[in-house]
């Protein structure tokens, strides 16, 4: 029963977000603040993870392709498609669920526990619109951008690792990148990124917004938010792959 109750409250929270802003300028300021927090705040970790994932993909693909019948440029194709289809959107989103998701849950949880949300409500502000909507819209804008950056850096990391270890030359890697390229893969990755962005922002917002208790409960809500977000990301990944590929 609790799960249905939670789903109901989650849907009501989403419905409650859509109301006329009391002051557009303040909402814009909050949206920009969230873009900075979610986008620039996560850029460093996304960059590091992407480069290393690309590098490891190149080395492990080369390790498995031992047949002399397979041209070395295939390594670049495999790295490209793996990074674009799976690593950049899914892995980066899982990392962001930890980085941005826990921040959103703990920020809202702390605001709830310290009565800051009540203070906003009493001022006559729709707290769902003011606190949750800018986070979701900022995530929908910034996370796909981070995924695109992750794609580029992942492929770059793969190229660097390939040339540095002597597995594949730069020119063959570049040639392989262009072979059998399917632009739809990028569109598919972006569709995934949008769905995951919504999960990354809305699920932690739900757990943070409705937290009850004190510091311990904020920690629990934050952990639960990350776990549920990760599971939903993986579930959505499977559903989208089954439907769209």
């Amino acid at each position, binding site marked *: 029963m609790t799960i249905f109750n939670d789903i109901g409250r989650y849907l009501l929270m989403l419905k409650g977000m859509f*109301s006329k802003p*009391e*002051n557009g*300028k*303040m909402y814009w300021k909050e949206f920009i603040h969230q873009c900075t927090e979610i986008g620039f705040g996560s850029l460093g970790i996304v960059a590091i993870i992407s480069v290393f994932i690309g590098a490891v993909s190149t080395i492990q693909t080369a390790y498995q392709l031992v047949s002399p019948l397979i041209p070395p440029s295939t390594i670049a194709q495999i790295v490209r498609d793996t990074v674009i289809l799976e690593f950049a959107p899914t892995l980066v989103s899982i990392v962001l669920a930890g980085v941005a998701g826990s921040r959103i849950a703990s920020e809202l949880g*702390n605001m709830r526990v*310290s*009565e*800051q949300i*009540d*203070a906003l*409500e*009493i*001022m*006559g*502000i*729709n707290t769902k619109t003011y606190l949750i909507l800018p986070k979701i819209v900022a995530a929908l804008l910034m996370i796909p951008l981070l995924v695109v950056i992750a794609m580029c850096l992942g492929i770059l990391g793969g190229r660097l690792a390939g040339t540095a270890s002597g597995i594949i030359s730069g020119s063959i890697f570049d040639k392989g990148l262009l072979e059998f390229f399917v632009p739809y893969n990028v569109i598919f990755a972006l569709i995934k990124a949008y769905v995951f962005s919504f999960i990354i922002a809305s699920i932690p917002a739900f757990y943070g917004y409705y937290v009850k208790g004190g510091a311990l409960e904020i920690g629990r809500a934050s952990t639960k938010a990350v776990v549920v977000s990760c599971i939903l990301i993986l579930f959505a990944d499977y559903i989208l792959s089954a439907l769209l590929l």
Partner: protein
Amino acid sequence: MIEVKNIKKSFGEKVVIEDVSAVMKAGQCNLIIGSSGSGKTVLQKCMVGLFEPDEGEVLYDGQNFTEMKGQEKTEIRKEIGMLFQGSALFDSLNVQENVMFPLNMFTKDSYKKKLERVNEVLARVNLVDANKKFPAELSGGMKKRVALARAVVLNPKYLFCDEPNSGLDPLTSLVIDKLIKEITVEYNITTVINTHDMNSVMEIGNYILYMYMGNKEWEGTNKEIIFSKNQRLNDFIFASEFLQDAKDMRMLEETGKISNNRNMEELMDKNAPTLVPPPDEEN
């Protein structure tokens, strides 16, 4: 004026407020007192709309707040200021930004005009040169004063205070009480205060509502409370021997048998000469 009519509120099986009615008048400090779990915080939250009462009505100057929806409710809420027990200041904003927040949200005034208003209310709560400090850098008393400044910055018609003196030393509590009292009279605000502080009850309680187990047990003024024969109220208010003595003294004062020569203004004046202990207490 705020009128509460037959408010009932339960959480699951637990009845927290059974049937409470009261009238809170403008320009007065209306106090809700009672032991922990008596339902005073729930009553206050029902009054401001943070909880929906199961039955009954809350009327703000005759307008039924309980039946209002959306924009109508928001309009009333813009006239409400609230001082929370934990101050509820926004951690990421400094003092100036905290106090300016309601102005930014609800007015189209220029920055200069808003800053003037912020400085005016901060001066009113005796906080100068603290504009750029963050909540984490403030003492408990300062936080309460910033929260009070934020609560009154839009000139509200109704002010709610949830345990404004909790966690404060007696002198700072006096300062906060005095400020609330002065602001209430100055702006003719209907002030509703939840408190455990007996000093507040005696000093600023124009109207006192005593709650016991979710019911209205007693109501009256801070003068009437001295002479009340309600056993539960007396047990709650004058719990210690010291408070019993204080009550006896106040009764004698009220009946004119002794005179009260305390000067609270002097007590709170920082420039007043400090009391020098008699020579035998120095060592």
